[in-house]
């Protein structure tokens, strides 16, 4: 059964059906979109059971001709790394849709259409094993996200939307040149030109070619992650996007950059990657510390969460820069973890914003009095994000630090300092918003979490706890593919 094709096609089919639903029937639109995304999750979850953890290479491969003239195929498949990200996407999709149920009153049908298109693009990117297909999906996600930010975003949505689009596009055109150059190299040295990643891995590229290609790919992915100094689009886009947009942007879209590094840059250009690793590490450490320091300064609740992503994604790229199995496995798991914890934080900010229509931290304080359940969930989210043991964030960051420590104690030392800062700004945020007396009278009548809101946060809470308490199955999935990547550095 072409399982992955079905998984990929589902949101697209759902989108086409959605277009046939009259826009006035808003609840029907919502119901349908949620159902489609939930069905997608239902289709994705059994992958976890059926996935063979002891096998090398890709599984559930679907191969079809696409553009024979170019040697591009419609080629889908997953290994442990993409499995995690596909599951993350499939989980966050329905959560984002459910979280928007009441928030989107205007142009509802278009909103859910964009959400489904986005889901299609995100899944496609993590599933594709063909470089051209990968690139197409890399670009496809830009359009729906542009509209999500631009139509349903905050006050500065117009600015944020085009800034997001242009930054990512500027990176991806350089990535495109890199892809074309790699394809051309493949045409010179392989039996026939191809975009198939596993075929391209057989290339023995000279070091200077590798270097050029690595940095071309780097520009594309580093902007997407985003790494310092390419991060300036992120706070605007994340802050202005509607909750669903922020969740998917932080939870999934950022991972496209790190996934690109793991899937393409590192294995394809191992020598160049080894050369570039110190630079990546320094940029990552700068991101960790700089992101954390900026977060400390924020007055806007959502903007703080946005900047914290810069810091946390810095850990993911630091793990990659270590180029050993701890670092890379930790990085991938941390990508998954960041998807969970940041989505939680954005969801919670969104809930508060829906009630109070302000995001200024100064407007809150003592919310725990009126919203005890909310405060509890928020506490878990904060602890998860700041890396408290027994929750998911700890596992990822610890493994990354292990990996970094093996390579350089200095890296690890700086990064540990980032964790301290992370705890500082998150706990301080918690203190300023949740604890103390209820200062602002406007907050007195706030309702606690509704059933629908519980439904969006509960799966994430459970996952955070599950990974934190018993991380072994998650690493078991990653073991093979990570070893394969690390093996390429040994040669």
């Amino acid at each position, binding site marked *: 059964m072409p399982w992955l094709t079905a998984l990929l096609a589902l949101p697209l089919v759902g989108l086409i059906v959605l277009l046939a639903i009259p826009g006035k029937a808003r609840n029907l639109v919502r119901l349908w979109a949620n159902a489609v995304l939930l069905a997608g999750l239902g289709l994705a979850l059994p992958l976890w059971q059926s996935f063979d953890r002891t096998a090398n290479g890709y599984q559930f491969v679907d191969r079809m001709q696409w*553009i024979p*003239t170019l040697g591009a195929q419609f080629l889908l498949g997953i290994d442990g790394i993409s499995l995690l990200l596909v599951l993350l996407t499939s989980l966050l999709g329905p959560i984002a849709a459910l979280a928007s149920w009441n928030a989107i009153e205007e142009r509802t049908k278009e909103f859910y259409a964009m959400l489904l298109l986005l889901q299609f693009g995100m899944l496609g990117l993590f599933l594709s094993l063909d470089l051209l297909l990968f*690139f*197409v999906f890399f670009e496809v996600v830009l359009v729906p996200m542009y*509209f999500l930010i631009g139509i349903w975003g905050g006050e500065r949505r117009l600015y944020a939307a085009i800034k997001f*689009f242009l930054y990512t*596009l500027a990176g991806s055109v350089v990535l495109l040149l890199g892809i074309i150059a790699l394809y051309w190299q493949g045409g010179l040295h392989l039996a026939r030109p191809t975009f198939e990643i596993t075929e391209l891995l057989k290339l023995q590229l000279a070091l200077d070619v590798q270097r050029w290609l690595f940095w071309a790919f780097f520009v594309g992915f580093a902007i997407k992650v985003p790494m310092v100094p390419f991060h300036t689009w992120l706070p605007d886009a994340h802050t202005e996007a509607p909750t669903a947009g922020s969740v998917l942007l932080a939870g999934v879209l950022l991972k496209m950059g790190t996934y690109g590094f793991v899937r393409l840059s590192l294995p394809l250009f191992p020598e160049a990657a080894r050369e570039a690793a110190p630079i990546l590490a320094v940029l990552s450490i700068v991101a960790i510390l700089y992101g954390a320091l900026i977060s400390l300064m924020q007055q806007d609740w959502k903007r703080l969460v946005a900047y914290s992503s810069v810091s946390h994604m810095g850990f993911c790229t630091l793990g990659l820069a270590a180029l050993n199995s701890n670092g890379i496995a930790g990085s991938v798991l941390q990508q998954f973890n960041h998807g969970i914890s940041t989505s939680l934080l954005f969801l919670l900010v969104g809930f508060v914003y829906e009630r109070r229509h302000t995001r200024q931290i100064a407007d809150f304080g003592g919310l725990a009095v009126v919203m005890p359940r909310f405060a509890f969930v928020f506490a878990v989210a904060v602890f998860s994000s700041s890396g408290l043991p027994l929750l998911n964030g700890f596992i990822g960051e610890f493994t990354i630090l292990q990996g970094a420590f093996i390579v350089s104690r200095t890296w690890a030392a700086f990064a540990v300092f980032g964790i301290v800062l992370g705890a500082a700004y998150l706990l301080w945020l918690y203190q300023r918003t949740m604890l103390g007396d209820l200062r602002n009278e406007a907050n007195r009548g706030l309702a606690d979490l509704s059933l629908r809101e519980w439904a969006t946060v509960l799966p994430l809470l459970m996952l955070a706890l599950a990974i934190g308490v018993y991380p072994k199955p998650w690493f078991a999935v990653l073991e093979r593919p990570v070893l394969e990547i690390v093996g390429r550095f040994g040669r």
Partner: protein
Amino acid sequence: MSHYYTDVDHFALLPAILLALFGCAIFLFDFLLGERSRRWHLMLVLPGLAITGWHLWKQGQIAPFTAFHGVLTIDAFGLFFNWLFLLTAALVAVISYRYLEIEDEHQGEYYGLVLMAQAGAYFLAVGTELITIFVGMETMGISFYVLVGFLRRSRRSNEAALKYLILGAFSSGILAYGFSILYGIAGSTYLTDIAVAVAARPAFDPLTILAILTVSAGILFKISAAPFHMWAPDVYEGAPTAVTAYLAVGSKIASLALLLRLFLGPLGSAREAWEPLLALAAIASLTVGNLAAVTQTNAKRMLAYSSIAHAGYLLLGLVAGNTTGLQGIAIYSGAYVFMTIGAFLVLMAVHGEEIDDLNGFARRHPVYAVPMVVFLLSLAGLPPTAGFLGKYYIFLALIESGRYVLALVGAAYVAVALFYYFRLVRSMFLLPTIEVERPKASSLGLRVALGTTGLVTLGAGIYPEPFLQLAMRSLLK
């Protein structure tokens, strides 16, 4: 040399004869029937194009062949471009009907001139003799001068026509001068003879360079490439929108075909002399077109500047000089026909020219706004659209031939282009609607053309294989 014409000669000329005949028939009907002839115009244009198409197809069966002792060369290259002209003319004809009615200029001459222009373009693609080429160029040019000024009561349309006429005549003069030098070099007006004579001359021969300079100046004017682009924004803005689309596509692609014919044929041996020249023109076009487009407030003017940039990309394909580059030009031109006409026809449906006129358009008319996004994405060169394929091939050609810097410049401007194209999307989707509901110049023809261009632009991006095969086959024969 024999002076008898054979059947093959007539066969080679037939498409142009048919186009001219149908064009004249429309002039005549319009004169005889006056107002009553309106409904017959399209009834004559479309069959005329269909019969022409049938003959093009028949020509394709026996191509390549030459006629009139080498005056015309019917080959896959020429046929490919003629198919593009045919599609362009058909699309322009069907989208014009309602537009002309609204502008109250519903004259038969319009359709006649559209066909006449195409008859001239025919010789630019298949002509292999200088005088024939020049006559074709002028036939096309004069038709366009009249078409640009077709809104007689509009001052801007008149101004545009006058500008285009004066500058166009000037550029034709320069082109004719260049042709005379080529004749001087070879003692013959046949491209095959000129090729031999040019190849026999030393590298960087001053006379050859002078010929290259003058000929390229004349043609670059027609394809609106920098530094000969100044006329384009004014003319594109002033001309009736349907004519702007025709000018931006038909005239540009036809002149491009001539450029390829000359520079890859007779001037091919002087590549080292013209290559840096065209590379500079390409870079200048990309820069001028993209940067100037950013600040425009008029949508037609913005698309005019962007079409200068597109000329730059097409030139880059020629600069790369390998087979991939040629395939890139073919694919790019094909995509360009559909995405450009698509974008212009949506502007016609809005019946407004300022970018602000589009505010909130998507709320009122999503059926037009959504395809417009596809066209704009394609114009910018994003997947999955036809425009992406064109740019992909051009970049691949540049990288294959080691011109990395050119590739990087071309790629960087994609982001700039997206910025100004998406100003239209921003107006249509993100900004609140304007109060005044403008009349919507829609018609059945417009909607059919919208559907066709939209489907091809998106379809060729999602499943490009048949389109690539088509473009490939057109050049390999």
